[in-house]
Protein backbone atom coordinates (compact mmCIF):
# COMPACT_ATOMS: atom_id res chain seq x y z
CA UNK A 1 0.00 0.00 0.00
CA UNK A 2 1.40 3.37 -0.97
CA UNK A 3 1.41 6.43 1.26
CA UNK A 4 -1.10 8.10 -1.02
CA UNK A 5 -3.53 5.24 -0.68
CA UNK A 6 -3.31 5.48 3.10
CA UNK A 7 -4.19 9.15 2.89
CA UNK A 8 -7.14 8.37 0.64
CA UNK A 9 -8.69 5.74 2.85
CA UNK A 10 -7.84 7.04 6.31
CA UNK A 11 -10.37 8.88 8.41
CA UNK A 12 -10.36 12.61 7.97
CA UNK A 13 -12.09 15.28 9.99
CA UNK A 14 -12.66 18.76 8.70
CA UNK A 15 -14.93 21.75 9.06
CA UNK A 16 -17.29 22.85 6.30
CA UNK A 17 -15.95 26.27 5.29
CA UNK A 18 -18.21 26.81 2.29
CA UNK A 19 -21.46 25.28 1.16
CA UNK A 20 -22.58 25.66 -2.43
CA UNK A 21 -25.62 24.51 -4.40
CA UNK A 22 -26.00 22.40 -7.54
CA UNK A 23 -24.15 22.91 -10.85
CA UNK A 24 -21.14 24.82 -9.51
CA UNK A 25 -19.28 25.47 -12.76
CA UNK A 26 -15.56 25.63 -13.34
CA UNK A 27 -16.17 29.27 -14.35
CA UNK A 28 -17.10 29.90 -10.71
CA UNK A 29 -14.28 27.78 -9.25
CA UNK A 30 -11.62 29.30 -11.52
CA UNK A 31 -12.86 32.18 -13.68
CA UNK A 32 -11.81 32.08 -17.33
CA UNK A 33 -10.00 35.40 -17.15
CA UNK A 34 -7.25 33.72 -15.09
CA UNK A 35 -6.80 30.82 -17.48
CA UNK A 36 -3.60 32.26 -18.92
CA UNK A 37 -2.13 31.19 -15.58
CA UNK A 38 -1.58 27.49 -16.08
CA UNK A 39 1.10 26.20 -13.71
CA UNK A 40 -0.44 24.31 -10.76
CA UNK A 41 1.74 26.19 -8.26
CA UNK A 42 0.40 29.55 -9.51
CA UNK A 43 -3.33 28.79 -9.65
CA UNK A 44 -4.37 28.73 -5.94
CA UNK A 45 -4.55 32.55 -5.69
CA UNK A 46 -7.53 32.62 -8.07
CA UNK A 47 -9.74 30.00 -6.39
CA UNK A 48 -13.33 31.27 -6.35
CA UNK A 49 -12.01 34.70 -7.35
CA UNK A 50 -15.54 36.06 -7.82
CA UNK A 51 -16.48 35.11 -4.25
CA UNK A 52 -14.12 37.85 -3.10
CA UNK A 53 -14.40 37.35 0.65
CA UNK A 54 -13.87 33.59 0.46
CA UNK A 55 -10.97 34.06 -1.93
CA UNK A 56 -9.33 36.49 0.49
CA UNK A 57 -9.72 34.04 3.38
CA UNK A 58 -8.18 31.26 1.29
CA UNK A 59 -5.23 33.42 0.34
CA UNK A 60 -4.65 34.41 3.98
CA UNK A 61 -4.55 30.69 4.79
CA UNK A 62 -7.32 31.16 7.35
CA UNK A 63 -8.41 27.53 6.99
CA UNK A 64 -6.45 24.48 8.12
CA UNK A 65 -5.63 21.77 5.55
CA UNK A 66 -8.48 19.32 4.85
CA UNK A 67 -11.11 22.00 5.34
CA UNK A 68 -14.23 20.93 3.51
CA UNK A 69 -16.14 22.45 0.65
CA UNK A 70 -19.64 21.04 0.29
CA UNK A 71 -21.33 20.98 -3.10
CA UNK A 72 -24.65 19.75 -4.48
CA UNK A 73 -25.11 17.81 -7.69
CA UNK A 74 -22.90 18.21 -10.77
CA UNK A 75 -20.03 19.97 -8.98
CA UNK A 76 -17.40 21.18 -11.47
CA UNK A 77 -19.62 21.20 -14.54
CA UNK A 78 -18.52 22.97 -17.69
CA UNK A 79 -15.01 23.55 -18.94
CA UNK A 80 -12.22 20.96 -18.85
CA UNK A 81 -9.81 23.52 -17.37
CA UNK A 82 -7.55 21.66 -15.00
CA UNK A 83 -6.89 24.86 -13.05
CA UNK A 84 -10.27 24.27 -11.36
CA UNK A 85 -8.79 21.19 -9.70
CA UNK A 86 -5.25 22.48 -9.12
CA UNK A 87 -6.52 25.71 -7.53
CA UNK A 88 -8.46 23.71 -4.87
CA UNK A 89 -5.67 21.16 -4.46
CA UNK A 90 -3.32 24.05 -3.72
CA UNK A 91 -5.36 24.93 -0.63
CA UNK A 92 -5.53 21.26 0.41
CA UNK A 93 -9.32 21.39 0.42
CA UNK A 94 -11.53 18.32 0.45
CA UNK A 95 -14.61 18.44 -1.79
CA UNK A 96 -17.66 16.55 -0.59
CA UNK A 97 -20.50 16.76 -3.10
CA UNK A 98 -23.71 14.96 -3.95
CA UNK A 99 -22.24 14.40 -7.41
CA UNK A 100 -19.44 15.60 -9.72
CA UNK A 101 -19.22 16.38 -13.42
CA UNK A 102 -17.08 13.86 -15.30
CA UNK A 103 -14.08 15.90 -16.45
CA UNK A 104 -13.70 17.75 -13.15
CA UNK A 105 -13.78 14.49 -11.19
CA UNK A 106 -11.19 13.00 -13.51
CA UNK A 107 -8.93 16.04 -13.21
CA UNK A 108 -9.28 15.99 -9.41
CA UNK A 109 -8.28 12.34 -9.23
CA UNK A 110 -5.42 12.85 -11.67
CA UNK A 111 -4.00 15.64 -9.51
CA UNK A 112 -4.76 14.04 -6.14
CA UNK A 113 -7.45 16.52 -5.04
CA UNK A 114 -9.58 14.58 -2.59
CA UNK A 115 -13.19 14.28 -3.78
CA UNK A 116 -15.97 12.47 -1.92
CA UNK A 117 -19.25 11.51 -3.60
CA UNK A 118 -21.98 11.60 -0.96
CA UNK A 119 -25.40 11.78 -2.65
CA UNK A 120 -27.52 12.25 0.48
CA UNK A 121 -25.28 14.58 2.42
CA UNK A 122 -26.87 17.26 4.59
CA UNK A 123 -24.40 19.72 6.06
CA UNK A 124 -24.14 23.42 6.84
CA UNK A 125 -21.21 25.79 7.00
CA UNK A 126 -19.46 25.36 10.34
CA UNK A 127 -20.39 21.67 10.69
CA UNK A 128 -17.60 19.21 11.37
CA UNK A 129 -17.57 16.21 9.06
CA UNK A 130 -15.80 12.93 9.61
CA UNK A 131 -14.98 11.20 6.34
CA UNK A 132 -14.07 7.55 6.58
CA UNK A 133 -14.28 4.60 4.23
CA UNK A 134 -17.86 4.20 3.10
CA UNK A 135 -19.50 7.08 4.97
CA UNK A 136 -19.53 10.69 6.05
CA UNK A 137 -20.59 11.44 9.62
CA UNK A 138 -21.78 14.95 10.32
CA UNK A 139 -20.42 15.34 13.86
CA UNK A 140 -22.49 18.46 14.40
CA UNK A 141 -25.86 16.91 13.55
CA UNK A 142 -24.78 13.34 14.43
CA UNK A 143 -26.12 11.99 11.16
CA UNK A 144 -24.36 9.54 8.86
CA UNK A 145 -24.44 9.40 5.05
CA UNK A 146 -23.14 6.73 2.65
CA UNK A 147 -20.30 7.44 0.21
CA UNK A 148 -20.45 6.21 -3.37
CA UNK A 149 -17.14 4.65 -4.40
CA UNK A 150 -15.27 6.38 -7.18
CA UNK A 151 -15.40 4.64 -10.57
CA UNK A 152 -13.27 1.49 -10.38
CA UNK A 153 -11.18 2.69 -13.30
CA UNK A 154 -10.04 5.64 -11.23
CA UNK A 155 -8.93 3.71 -8.16
CA UNK A 156 -5.67 2.54 -9.73
CA UNK A 157 -4.70 6.15 -10.45
CA UNK A 158 -5.50 7.18 -6.88
CA UNK A 159 -3.46 4.27 -5.58
CA UNK A 160 -0.48 5.31 -7.70
CA UNK A 161 -0.61 8.82 -6.23
CA UNK A 162 -1.99 10.54 -9.31
CA UNK A 163 -1.82 10.27 -13.08
CA UNK A 164 1.74 11.54 -13.50
CA UNK A 165 3.37 8.74 -11.44
CA UNK A 166 0.85 6.25 -12.90
CA UNK A 167 1.79 7.17 -16.48
CA UNK A 168 5.51 7.32 -15.65
CA UNK A 169 5.32 3.75 -14.37
CA UNK A 170 3.50 2.62 -17.52
CA UNK A 171 6.04 4.39 -19.70
CA UNK A 172 8.92 2.63 -17.98
CA UNK A 173 7.15 -0.73 -18.30
CA UNK A 174 6.58 -0.03 -21.99
CA UNK A 175 10.25 0.59 -22.69
CA UNK A 176 11.22 -2.32 -20.47
CA UNK A 177 13.05 -0.28 -17.86
CA UNK A 178 10.99 -1.50 -14.94
Amino acid at each position, binding site marked *: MTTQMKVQTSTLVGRVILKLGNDVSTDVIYPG*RFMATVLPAETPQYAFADLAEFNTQLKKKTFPPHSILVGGNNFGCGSSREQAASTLKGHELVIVARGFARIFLQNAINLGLRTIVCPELEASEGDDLEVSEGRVVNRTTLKSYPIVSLPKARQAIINAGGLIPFTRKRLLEKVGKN
Partner: protein
Amino acid sequence: MSMTVVQKILARATGQASVNVGDVVEPAVDLAMSHENAALVINQFTEIYQGTGLPSRVWDPSKIAIVFDHRVPAETSKTATNQKKVREFIQAQGITKFHDIRGDEGGICHQILPENGYVRPGAVVVGTDSHTTSHGALGAFAFGVGATEMASIWTLGTVLNVEVPGTIKVVVNGEFASFVSPKDLILHLIGKLSAEGANFKVIEFHGETIRKMSTSGRLVLCNMAVEAGATSGIVPADEETRRYLREEAGVGESLDMVSPDPDAEYERVIEIDASQLVVTVACPHTVDNVRPVLSVQGTAVHQIVIGSCTNGRLDDLAIAAKILKGREVAKGVRMLIFPASWRIYKESLARGYLTDLIDAGAVVMNPGCGCCLGVHQGALADGDVALSTTNRNFVGRMGNPKSEVYLCSPAVAAASAITGVITDPGKGAN
Protein backbone atom coordinates in the same frame (compact mmCIF):
# COMPACT_ATOMS: atom_id res chain seq x y z
CA MET B 1 -22.99 -9.39 -29.13
CA SER B 2 -24.87 -6.21 -30.04
CA MET B 3 -23.10 -2.94 -29.53
CA THR B 4 -23.74 0.80 -29.60
CA VAL B 5 -21.57 2.85 -31.94
CA VAL B 6 -19.22 3.87 -29.11
CA GLN B 7 -18.86 0.24 -27.95
CA LYS B 8 -17.88 -0.65 -31.53
CA ILE B 9 -15.37 2.19 -31.72
CA LEU B 10 -13.82 1.23 -28.38
CA ALA B 11 -13.68 -2.45 -29.36
CA ARG B 12 -11.78 -1.51 -32.51
CA ALA B 13 -9.49 0.90 -30.63
CA THR B 14 -8.57 -1.82 -28.14
CA GLY B 15 -8.23 -4.65 -30.65
CA GLN B 16 -11.13 -6.64 -29.20
CA ALA B 17 -14.15 -8.25 -30.82
CA SER B 18 -16.47 -6.55 -28.35
CA VAL B 19 -16.59 -4.49 -25.17
CA ASN B 20 -19.29 -4.29 -22.51
CA VAL B 21 -20.58 -1.16 -20.82
CA GLY B 22 -18.56 -0.73 -17.62
CA ASP B 23 -15.47 -2.54 -18.95
CA VAL B 24 -12.24 -0.69 -18.24
CA VAL B 25 -10.30 -0.30 -21.48
CA GLU B 26 -7.27 1.53 -22.85
CA PRO B 27 -8.19 2.74 -26.34
CA ALA B 28 -5.60 3.87 -28.86
CA VAL B 29 -6.02 7.55 -29.76
CA ASP B 30 -6.41 8.68 -33.38
CA LEU B 31 -6.37 12.41 -32.74
CA ALA B 32 -5.34 14.43 -29.67
CA MET B 33 -6.24 18.12 -29.78
CA SER B 34 -5.18 21.02 -27.59
CA HIS B 35 -5.40 24.79 -27.84
CA GLU B 36 -3.49 27.38 -25.81
CA ASN B 37 -3.74 25.07 -22.80
CA ALA B 38 -1.08 22.97 -24.52
CA ALA B 39 1.20 25.15 -22.37
CA LEU B 40 -0.01 23.24 -19.30
CA VAL B 41 0.03 19.90 -21.13
CA ILE B 42 3.69 20.49 -22.01
CA ASN B 43 4.48 21.19 -18.35
CA GLN B 44 2.79 17.96 -17.19
CA PHE B 45 4.30 15.97 -20.08
CA THR B 46 7.79 17.10 -19.10
CA GLU B 47 7.07 16.08 -15.50
CA ILE B 48 6.07 12.55 -16.55
CA TYR B 49 9.49 12.08 -18.13
CA GLN B 50 11.35 13.55 -15.18
CA GLY B 51 13.79 11.08 -13.63
CA THR B 52 13.16 8.41 -16.28
CA GLY B 53 16.33 9.07 -18.23
CA LEU B 54 14.21 8.94 -21.39
CA PRO B 55 13.99 11.72 -23.96
CA SER B 56 10.56 13.35 -23.77
CA ARG B 57 9.08 12.58 -27.19
CA VAL B 58 5.37 12.51 -27.99
CA TRP B 59 4.10 9.10 -29.12
CA ASP B 60 3.11 10.23 -32.63
CA PRO B 61 3.47 13.87 -33.71
CA SER B 62 1.16 13.31 -36.70
CA LYS B 63 -1.78 12.54 -34.40
CA ILE B 64 -1.55 15.68 -32.31
CA ALA B 65 -3.42 18.83 -33.34
CA ILE B 66 -2.84 22.21 -31.74
CA VAL B 67 -5.04 25.18 -32.62
CA PHE B 68 -4.67 28.66 -31.14
CA ASP B 69 -8.17 30.06 -30.68
CA HIS B 70 -8.85 31.17 -27.12
CA ARG B 71 -6.71 34.31 -27.10
CA VAL B 72 -5.96 35.31 -30.67
CA PRO B 73 -4.08 37.50 -31.30
CA ALA B 74 -2.50 37.42 -27.84
CA GLU B 75 -4.05 40.01 -25.52
CA THR B 76 -1.16 40.13 -23.03
CA SER B 77 2.54 39.40 -23.06
CA LYS B 78 1.84 36.47 -20.73
CA THR B 79 -0.38 34.82 -23.35
CA ALA B 80 2.09 35.68 -26.10
CA THR B 81 4.88 34.02 -24.11
CA ASN B 82 2.76 30.90 -23.49
CA GLN B 83 1.95 30.72 -27.21
CA LYS B 84 5.63 31.11 -28.02
CA LYS B 85 6.55 28.19 -25.72
CA VAL B 86 3.90 26.04 -27.40
CA ARG B 87 5.26 26.94 -30.87
CA GLU B 88 8.77 25.97 -29.78
CA PHE B 89 7.51 22.63 -28.49
CA ILE B 90 5.59 21.97 -31.71
CA GLN B 91 8.73 22.70 -33.71
CA ALA B 92 10.92 20.49 -31.52
CA GLN B 93 8.48 17.55 -31.59
CA GLY B 94 7.61 17.80 -35.28
CA ILE B 95 3.86 18.24 -34.70
CA THR B 96 2.29 18.92 -38.10
CA LYS B 97 -1.40 19.65 -37.39
CA PHE B 98 -0.68 23.11 -36.01
CA HIS B 99 -2.97 26.03 -36.70
CA ASP B 100 -1.34 29.27 -35.66
CA ILE B 101 -2.73 32.82 -35.72
CA ARG B 102 -2.94 33.02 -39.50
CA GLY B 103 -5.63 33.98 -41.98
CA ASP B 104 -4.87 31.04 -44.26
CA GLU B 105 -5.32 28.28 -41.66
CA GLY B 106 -6.65 29.62 -38.36
CA GLY B 107 -9.92 29.41 -36.50
CA ILE B 108 -11.68 27.71 -33.62
CA CYS B 109 -10.37 24.22 -32.89
CA HIS B 110 -13.80 22.58 -33.16
CA GLN B 111 -14.21 24.01 -36.65
CA ILE B 112 -10.60 23.55 -37.78
CA LEU B 113 -10.58 19.81 -37.01
CA PRO B 114 -13.66 18.96 -39.12
CA GLU B 115 -12.97 21.33 -42.00
CA ASN B 116 -9.42 20.02 -42.44
CA GLY B 117 -10.61 16.41 -42.48
CA TYR B 118 -8.72 15.48 -39.29
CA VAL B 119 -11.76 13.76 -37.77
CA ARG B 120 -12.95 10.49 -39.28
CA PRO B 121 -15.86 8.18 -38.51
CA GLY B 122 -14.88 5.48 -36.02
CA ALA B 123 -11.94 7.47 -34.64
CA VAL B 124 -11.11 8.06 -30.99
CA VAL B 125 -10.67 11.81 -30.60
CA VAL B 126 -9.64 13.49 -27.35
CA GLY B 127 -9.19 17.18 -26.65
CA THR B 128 -8.26 19.38 -23.73
CA ASP B 129 -11.54 21.17 -24.19
CA SER B 130 -14.95 20.10 -22.95
CA HIS B 131 -16.56 20.87 -26.31
CA THR B 132 -14.47 18.17 -27.98
CA THR B 133 -17.82 16.33 -27.97
CA SER B 134 -18.46 18.32 -31.19
CA HIS B 135 -16.55 15.81 -33.30
CA GLY B 136 -19.10 13.11 -32.67
CA ALA B 137 -20.92 14.90 -35.50
CA LEU B 138 -18.63 12.99 -37.87
CA GLY B 139 -19.19 9.60 -36.24
CA ALA B 140 -16.11 9.69 -34.00
CA PHE B 141 -16.02 8.97 -30.27
CA ALA B 142 -14.81 12.37 -29.11
CA PHE B 143 -14.49 13.58 -25.53
CA GLY B 144 -12.86 16.22 -23.39
CA VAL B 145 -9.97 15.54 -21.02
CA GLY B 146 -7.83 17.60 -18.65
CA ALA B 147 -4.26 18.68 -19.33
CA THR B 148 -2.58 15.95 -17.25
CA GLU B 149 -4.72 13.32 -18.99
CA MET B 150 -3.53 14.74 -22.31
CA ALA B 151 0.09 14.64 -21.15
CA SER B 152 -0.43 10.94 -20.44
CA ILE B 153 -1.93 10.47 -23.93
CA TRP B 154 1.00 12.29 -25.55
CA THR B 155 3.28 9.86 -23.71
CA LEU B 156 1.53 6.55 -24.34
CA GLY B 157 -0.82 7.12 -27.29
CA THR B 158 -3.69 5.60 -25.34
CA VAL B 159 -6.23 6.85 -22.83
CA LEU B 160 -5.65 4.98 -19.58
CA ASN B 161 -8.50 3.36 -17.70
CA VAL B 162 -11.53 4.41 -19.71
CA GLU B 163 -14.80 2.95 -18.48
CA VAL B 164 -16.98 2.04 -21.47
CA PRO B 165 -19.94 4.42 -21.13
CA GLY B 166 -23.60 3.58 -21.41
CA THR B 167 -25.59 5.32 -24.16
CA ILE B 168 -28.79 7.34 -24.30
CA LYS B 169 -30.44 7.06 -27.71
CA VAL B 170 -32.18 10.20 -28.92
CA VAL B 171 -34.47 9.72 -31.92
CA VAL B 172 -35.65 12.87 -33.68
CA ASN B 173 -38.29 12.79 -36.40
CA GLY B 174 -40.32 15.47 -38.14
CA GLU B 175 -39.52 18.81 -39.71
CA PHE B 176 -38.55 21.94 -37.86
CA ALA B 177 -41.04 24.81 -37.93
CA SER B 178 -39.85 28.09 -39.40
CA PHE B 179 -36.84 29.55 -37.50
CA VAL B 180 -36.46 26.42 -35.34
CA SER B 181 -32.90 25.13 -35.65
CA PRO B 182 -30.54 22.46 -34.30
CA LYS B 183 -29.71 24.92 -31.48
CA ASP B 184 -33.34 24.91 -30.35
CA LEU B 185 -33.38 21.10 -30.51
CA ILE B 186 -30.30 20.70 -28.32
CA LEU B 187 -31.46 23.36 -25.83
CA HIS B 188 -34.78 21.49 -25.60
CA LEU B 189 -32.95 18.20 -25.01
CA ILE B 190 -30.69 19.70 -22.33
CA GLY B 191 -33.76 21.11 -20.59
CA LYS B 192 -35.34 17.67 -20.69
CA LEU B 193 -32.26 15.81 -19.44
CA SER B 194 -30.99 18.55 -17.05
CA ALA B 195 -27.40 19.75 -16.79
CA GLU B 196 -26.28 16.40 -15.37
CA GLY B 197 -28.84 14.06 -16.92
CA ALA B 198 -26.32 12.48 -19.26
CA ASN B 199 -23.29 12.59 -16.93
CA PHE B 200 -20.85 9.76 -17.80
CA LYS B 201 -23.10 8.73 -20.74
CA VAL B 202 -22.98 9.05 -24.51
CA ILE B 203 -25.86 10.59 -26.44
CA GLU B 204 -26.35 8.82 -29.79
CA PHE B 205 -28.53 10.74 -32.25
CA HIS B 206 -30.90 9.03 -34.68
CA GLY B 207 -34.02 9.72 -36.73
CA GLU B 208 -35.08 11.36 -39.98
CA THR B 209 -34.44 14.89 -38.74
CA ILE B 210 -30.82 13.99 -37.98
CA ARG B 211 -30.37 12.10 -41.28
CA LYS B 212 -31.48 15.21 -43.17
CA MET B 213 -29.45 17.59 -41.02
CA SER B 214 -26.20 19.09 -42.34
CA THR B 215 -22.90 18.37 -40.58
CA SER B 216 -22.98 21.98 -39.42
CA GLY B 217 -26.23 21.29 -37.54
CA ARG B 218 -24.94 17.98 -36.18
CA LEU B 219 -21.89 19.83 -34.82
CA VAL B 220 -24.27 22.04 -32.81
CA LEU B 221 -25.97 18.99 -31.27
CA CYS B 222 -22.79 17.13 -30.39
CA ASN B 223 -21.05 20.32 -29.24
CA MET B 224 -23.67 20.98 -26.58
CA ALA B 225 -24.19 17.34 -25.53
CA VAL B 226 -21.65 18.10 -22.81
CA GLU B 227 -24.05 20.68 -21.36
CA ALA B 228 -26.24 17.75 -20.30
CA GLY B 229 -23.07 16.26 -18.78
CA ALA B 230 -22.53 13.76 -21.62
CA THR B 231 -19.09 12.27 -22.15
CA SER B 232 -19.81 12.54 -25.85
CA GLY B 233 -22.50 13.12 -28.42
CA ILE B 234 -22.40 11.09 -31.62
CA VAL B 235 -24.19 10.88 -34.94
CA PRO B 236 -23.35 7.52 -36.54
CA ALA B 237 -21.67 8.15 -39.91
CA ASP B 238 -23.94 8.24 -42.96
CA GLU B 239 -24.14 9.70 -46.46
CA GLU B 240 -24.01 13.28 -45.16
CA THR B 241 -20.83 12.44 -43.21
CA ARG B 242 -19.30 11.08 -46.39
CA ARG B 243 -20.45 14.10 -48.40
CA TYR B 244 -19.01 16.55 -45.85
CA LEU B 245 -15.65 14.78 -45.62
CA ARG B 246 -15.32 14.38 -49.39
CA GLU B 247 -16.68 17.73 -50.58
CA GLU B 248 -15.97 20.14 -47.74
CA ALA B 249 -12.97 18.60 -45.97
CA GLY B 250 -11.24 17.17 -49.04
CA VAL B 251 -10.77 13.66 -47.62
CA GLY B 252 -9.93 11.08 -50.29
CA GLU B 253 -9.16 8.01 -48.17
CA SER B 254 -11.66 5.24 -47.54
CA LEU B 255 -13.94 5.82 -44.56
CA ASP B 256 -14.83 3.41 -41.77
CA MET B 257 -18.60 4.00 -41.54
CA VAL B 258 -19.20 2.56 -38.07
CA SER B 259 -22.84 2.21 -37.12
CA PRO B 260 -24.53 0.69 -34.07
CA ASP B 261 -26.16 -2.73 -34.18
CA PRO B 262 -29.93 -2.48 -34.68
CA ASP B 263 -30.50 -4.34 -31.41
CA ALA B 264 -27.86 -2.49 -29.37
CA GLU B 265 -28.77 -1.88 -25.75
CA TYR B 266 -29.47 1.65 -24.62
CA GLU B 267 -29.91 2.93 -21.10
CA ARG B 268 -32.73 5.14 -22.22
CA VAL B 269 -34.46 6.08 -25.47
CA ILE B 270 -35.84 9.59 -25.92
CA GLU B 271 -38.08 10.37 -28.87
CA ILE B 272 -38.52 13.94 -30.02
CA ASP B 273 -41.01 15.27 -32.56
CA ALA B 274 -39.07 18.10 -34.23
CA SER B 275 -42.25 19.64 -35.59
CA GLN B 276 -43.42 20.36 -32.05
CA LEU B 277 -40.28 22.26 -31.05
CA VAL B 278 -40.38 26.01 -30.57
CA VAL B 279 -37.70 28.68 -30.72
CA THR B 280 -35.92 28.32 -27.39
CA VAL B 281 -33.49 30.24 -25.18
CA ALA B 282 -31.45 29.19 -22.14
CA CYS B 283 -31.87 31.76 -19.37
CA PRO B 284 -29.30 32.73 -16.74
CA HIS B 285 -27.42 31.04 -15.10
CA THR B 286 -27.60 27.40 -16.21
CA VAL B 287 -27.86 25.90 -19.68
CA ASP B 288 -30.76 23.65 -18.64
CA ASN B 289 -32.83 26.70 -17.64
CA VAL B 290 -34.55 26.66 -21.04
CA ARG B 291 -37.75 28.48 -21.98
CA PRO B 292 -39.66 29.27 -25.15
CA VAL B 293 -38.39 32.56 -26.57
CA LEU B 294 -41.90 33.99 -26.20
CA SER B 295 -41.72 33.72 -22.41
CA VAL B 296 -38.71 36.07 -22.25
CA GLN B 297 -39.58 38.19 -25.28
CA GLY B 298 -38.98 41.87 -24.54
CA THR B 299 -36.00 41.40 -22.22
CA ALA B 300 -33.59 44.25 -22.99
CA VAL B 301 -30.10 43.23 -24.13
CA HIS B 302 -26.84 45.19 -24.31
CA GLN B 303 -24.56 42.89 -26.27
CA ILE B 304 -25.33 40.25 -28.88
CA VAL B 305 -22.75 37.69 -29.92
CA ILE B 306 -22.88 35.38 -32.92
CA GLY B 307 -20.01 32.94 -33.02
CA SER B 308 -18.16 30.23 -31.04
CA CYS B 309 -17.63 26.52 -31.63
CA THR B 310 -21.42 26.17 -31.37
CA ASN B 311 -22.83 28.66 -33.88
CA GLY B 312 -20.24 30.54 -35.91
CA ARG B 313 -20.47 28.59 -39.16
CA LEU B 314 -21.53 29.63 -42.64
CA ASP B 315 -25.22 28.73 -42.24
CA ASP B 316 -25.31 30.68 -38.96
CA LEU B 317 -23.88 33.79 -40.58
CA ALA B 318 -26.18 33.30 -43.58
CA ILE B 319 -29.36 33.44 -41.52
CA ALA B 320 -28.07 36.38 -39.47
CA ALA B 321 -27.24 38.29 -42.66
CA LYS B 322 -30.62 37.44 -44.18
CA ILE B 323 -32.45 38.84 -41.14
CA LEU B 324 -30.21 41.92 -40.76
CA LYS B 325 -29.76 42.83 -44.44
CA GLY B 326 -31.06 46.36 -44.93
CA ARG B 327 -31.96 46.65 -41.24
CA GLU B 328 -30.17 48.27 -38.33
CA VAL B 329 -28.80 47.02 -35.04
CA ALA B 330 -30.73 48.93 -32.34
CA LYS B 331 -28.92 51.90 -30.86
CA GLY B 332 -27.30 51.03 -27.56
CA VAL B 333 -26.78 47.41 -28.59
CA ARG B 334 -23.31 46.10 -29.46
CA MET B 335 -23.39 43.25 -31.93
CA LEU B 336 -20.25 41.13 -32.33
CA ILE B 337 -19.76 38.49 -35.02
CA PHE B 338 -16.98 35.90 -34.66
CA PRO B 339 -16.81 33.59 -37.71
CA ALA B 340 -15.64 30.15 -36.51
CA SER B 341 -12.70 29.99 -38.91
CA TRP B 342 -10.93 32.10 -41.49
CA ARG B 343 -12.27 29.79 -44.20
CA ILE B 344 -15.79 30.65 -43.03
CA TYR B 345 -14.79 34.32 -42.74
CA LYS B 346 -13.63 34.41 -46.38
CA GLU B 347 -16.65 32.49 -47.68
CA SER B 348 -19.12 34.71 -45.84
CA LEU B 349 -17.22 37.75 -47.09
CA ALA B 350 -17.45 36.48 -50.67
CA ARG B 351 -21.18 35.82 -50.30
CA GLY B 352 -21.77 39.31 -48.96
CA TYR B 353 -22.91 38.21 -45.50
CA LEU B 354 -20.26 40.16 -43.65
CA THR B 355 -20.98 43.34 -45.60
CA ASP B 356 -24.70 43.02 -44.81
CA LEU B 357 -23.89 42.54 -41.14
CA ILE B 358 -21.42 45.43 -41.03
CA ASP B 359 -23.86 47.73 -42.84
CA ALA B 360 -26.46 46.88 -40.21
CA GLY B 361 -24.06 47.98 -37.50
CA ALA B 362 -22.49 44.70 -36.41
CA VAL B 363 -18.77 44.48 -35.63
CA VAL B 364 -17.02 41.59 -37.38
CA MET B 365 -14.20 40.21 -35.26
CA ASN B 366 -11.43 37.84 -36.20
CA PRO B 367 -12.13 34.12 -35.73
CA GLY B 368 -11.59 32.99 -32.14
CA CYS B 369 -13.58 31.80 -29.16
CA GLY B 370 -12.34 33.90 -26.23
CA CYS B 371 -15.46 36.05 -25.96
CA CYS B 372 -17.61 33.06 -24.95
CA LEU B 373 -15.57 32.44 -21.81
CA GLY B 374 -14.65 36.02 -21.04
CA VAL B 375 -10.96 35.79 -21.83
CA HIS B 376 -10.61 37.78 -25.06
CA GLN B 377 -12.64 40.81 -26.22
CA GLY B 378 -16.30 41.62 -25.90
CA ALA B 379 -16.26 42.17 -22.14
CA LEU B 380 -19.56 42.97 -20.41
CA ALA B 381 -20.27 45.87 -18.05
CA ASP B 382 -21.81 45.43 -14.60
CA GLY B 383 -25.53 44.88 -15.10
CA ASP B 384 -25.22 44.06 -18.82
CA VAL B 385 -27.42 41.43 -20.40
CA ALA B 386 -25.87 39.45 -23.24
CA LEU B 387 -27.70 37.35 -25.81
CA SER B 388 -25.34 34.89 -27.39
CA THR B 389 -25.21 31.91 -29.74
CA THR B 390 -22.47 30.40 -27.56
CA ASN B 391 -22.87 27.40 -25.26
CA ARG B 392 -22.64 28.46 -21.60
CA ASN B 393 -24.36 31.04 -19.43
CA PHE B 394 -22.89 30.29 -16.00
CA VAL B 395 -22.33 33.13 -13.53
CA GLY B 396 -19.27 35.04 -14.77
CA ARG B 397 -18.99 32.96 -17.94
CA MET B 398 -18.45 35.94 -20.24
CA GLY B 399 -16.05 37.51 -17.77
CA ASN B 400 -18.29 39.54 -15.48
CA PRO B 401 -20.14 37.91 -12.57
CA LYS B 402 -22.42 40.97 -12.45
CA SER B 403 -23.79 40.30 -15.94
CA GLU B 404 -26.34 37.89 -17.38
CA VAL B 405 -26.11 35.67 -20.46
CA TYR B 406 -29.00 34.22 -22.47
CA LEU B 407 -28.21 31.54 -25.05
CA CYS B 408 -30.02 31.31 -28.37
CA SER B 409 -29.84 30.47 -32.07
CA PRO B 410 -28.37 32.85 -34.67
CA ALA B 411 -31.88 33.72 -35.88
CA VAL B 412 -32.95 34.88 -32.41
CA ALA B 413 -29.68 36.80 -32.02
CA ALA B 414 -30.17 38.62 -35.33
CA ALA B 415 -33.87 39.40 -34.81
CA SER B 416 -33.14 40.68 -31.30
CA ALA B 417 -30.31 42.89 -32.59
CA ILE B 418 -32.87 44.89 -34.57
CA THR B 419 -35.25 45.41 -31.66
CA GLY B 420 -32.73 45.55 -28.80
CA VAL B 421 -34.88 43.12 -26.83
CA ILE B 422 -35.14 39.33 -26.96
CA THR B 423 -37.31 38.69 -29.99
CA ASP B 424 -38.92 35.70 -31.68
CA PRO B 425 -37.53 35.82 -35.25
CA GLY B 426 -40.89 34.58 -36.58
CA LYS B 427 -42.88 37.31 -34.90
CA GLY B 428 -40.80 40.39 -34.21
CA ALA B 429 -38.30 42.59 -35.95
CA ASN B 430 -40.79 43.73 -38.60
